[in-house]
């Protein structure tokens, strides 16, 4: 019963994604003054998440990369729109990065809240407070 609880897996994958996103944003901000640096971004969690095999009809992955999503290597970096690049070729916009960072923080908080609440449901089902 306690194996492969989907809500925990989803919350975990969401938190991992938020952490990766935060790292990418930090990299962009740190390189905000590096000439020729192209800003990067991760696809949104909604687009890359595929629920684990336990919760749906199972199709077995016979090769690495057949089923994306839960193999935790979902960080295909994509380059952001660089039509606003400054003359030195740097396309980082600090304000856009701040927006993304706030997104990442909120996503992370949300996933932790879900995890915590699911944990308390689990605890009360065990008769503990």
């Amino acid at each position, binding site marked *: 019963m306690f194996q492969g609880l989907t809500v925990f897996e989803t919350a975990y994958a969401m938190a991992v994604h938020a952490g990766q996103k935060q790292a990418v944003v930090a990299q962009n901000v740190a390189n905000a003054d590096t000439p020729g640096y192209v800003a990067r971004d991760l696809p949104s969690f909604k687009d890359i998440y595929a629920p684990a095999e336990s919760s749906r009809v199972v199709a077995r992955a016979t090769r690495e990369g057949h089923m994306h999503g839960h193999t935790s290597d979902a960080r295909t970096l994509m380059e952001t729109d660089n039509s606003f690049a400054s003359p030195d070729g740097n396309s980082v916009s*600090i304000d856009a990065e701040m927006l993304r960072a706030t997104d990442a923080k909120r996503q992370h908080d949300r996933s*932790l809240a879900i995890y915590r609440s699911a944990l308390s449901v689990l605890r009360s089902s065990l008769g503990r407070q």
Partner: protein
Amino acid sequence: MSEFSKALSISTSGLQAQASRLRHLSENISNADTPGYRRKMIPFDTRMQNGVSQVEVGRMTLDDRPLERVFDPAHPMADATGHYEGSNVELLIELADAREAQRSYEANLKMFEQARQMSSGLMQLLRR
């Protein structure tokens, strides 16, 4: 290396780069009236380390624009025409650059703080 420690190390490299930029700027500003002083410039570069691209400060170069010629016959270094060579520092450029460095420093600091908050939020899950 977890994502948070990656984020923290990247932000730290950004903070160091901006701090070193600010140090060179203040050297330039304080030597704005030194005769023969050439403005120092440092390039920023991206360096891959442990799979993350950190910022690296490259070799310092001197600005080779011509030095400003100041007319002051009473100056000990004045030549036959009464001119001496001042520095090629322009205060306005340095101040604008310093403001940009400050802005980037604060942005990096904010990213550092946020990564720290996220990881401590994770630790709160264990605390019960």
